């Protein structure tokens, strides 16, 4: 029968023997989260692999500048978001999502409050990618960050430049839009 998907979290990767023990630990604890963000934000496994490498290389070079004001995860996310947004900037013309389109999705009410059901897990990744590709960048990023249980609404807000209340409000609309789009991918 249908099972709830509880207990799914960003599990640490096995430690990689990298330049320093601290950097190996940083990579082991955060590589899955950063790779997943890059993968679903860029929608291309090869570009996500390159981006994840570049993000961790930047982090390695700037580790001494980390001031400890935010968590390491948040700091890495900030580097990753800047990097991915810069990469996407080049393709912007091909991926324009107008406000008019946004309104169409937000006005879609049919069945968006019901649970999201999938029959074939193997197709899940493709359907998620297709759905995320149809979302405005702001909603895509918000959902990907909120999906990380290690981040609070305050931390997500700081990463996207919004107040925690604004994050909650936008998250509601992002969920609704995601659900409407996801059902169209079946």
């Amino acid at each position, binding site marked *: *029968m*249908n*099972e*709830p*998907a*509880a207990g*799914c*979290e*960003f*599990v640490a*990767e096995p430690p*990689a*023997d*990298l*330049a*320093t023990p601290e*950097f190996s630990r940083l*990579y082991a604890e955060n*590589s*899955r*989260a950063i*790779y*997943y963000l890059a*993968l*679903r934000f860029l929608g291309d*496994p090869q570009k996500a*692999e390159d981006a*994840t*490498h570049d993000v*961790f*290389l930047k982090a*390695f*070079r*700037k*580790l*001494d500048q980390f001031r400890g004001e935010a968590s390491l995860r948040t700091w890495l996310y900030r580097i990753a978001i800047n990097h991915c947004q810069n990469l996407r900037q080049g393709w912007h013309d091909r991926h324009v999502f107008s406000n008019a389109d946004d309104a169409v999705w937000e006005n879609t009410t049919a069945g968006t409050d019901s*649970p*999201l*059901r*999938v*029959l*074939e*897990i*193997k197709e*899940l*990744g493709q359907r*998620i990618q297709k759905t995320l590709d149809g979302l405005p960048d702001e909603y895509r990023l918000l*959902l*990907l960050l*909120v*999906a990380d*249980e290690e981040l609070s609404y305050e931390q997500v807000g700081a990463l996207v430049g919004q107040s925690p209340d604004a994050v909650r409000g936008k998250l509601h609309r*992002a*969920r609704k839009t*995601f*659900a409407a789009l*996801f059902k169209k991918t079946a």
Partner: protein
Amino acid sequence: MKQQTKLSEEQQQQQRAAEQQTQKQSAREFANAEEMLRYDAAHTTVPPGIAQRLRKSTGQTSAPPPRSWWRNLLGR
């Protein structure tokens, strides 16, 4: 001949039942988008090539210099 046909019908039924069971097992419900993304993330493998490339890149890059004594002293 008839027995063979009956047997194959039974086999077909068993196969159909097994397929239905598989489909039921693979069906999942997610309360919202984040839950689905969390599940997807948990089933996403980080390509091992990234760590290999990082090993090379960080070998070529000098390790970050240790904090100077006066930075430690001033907490900057």
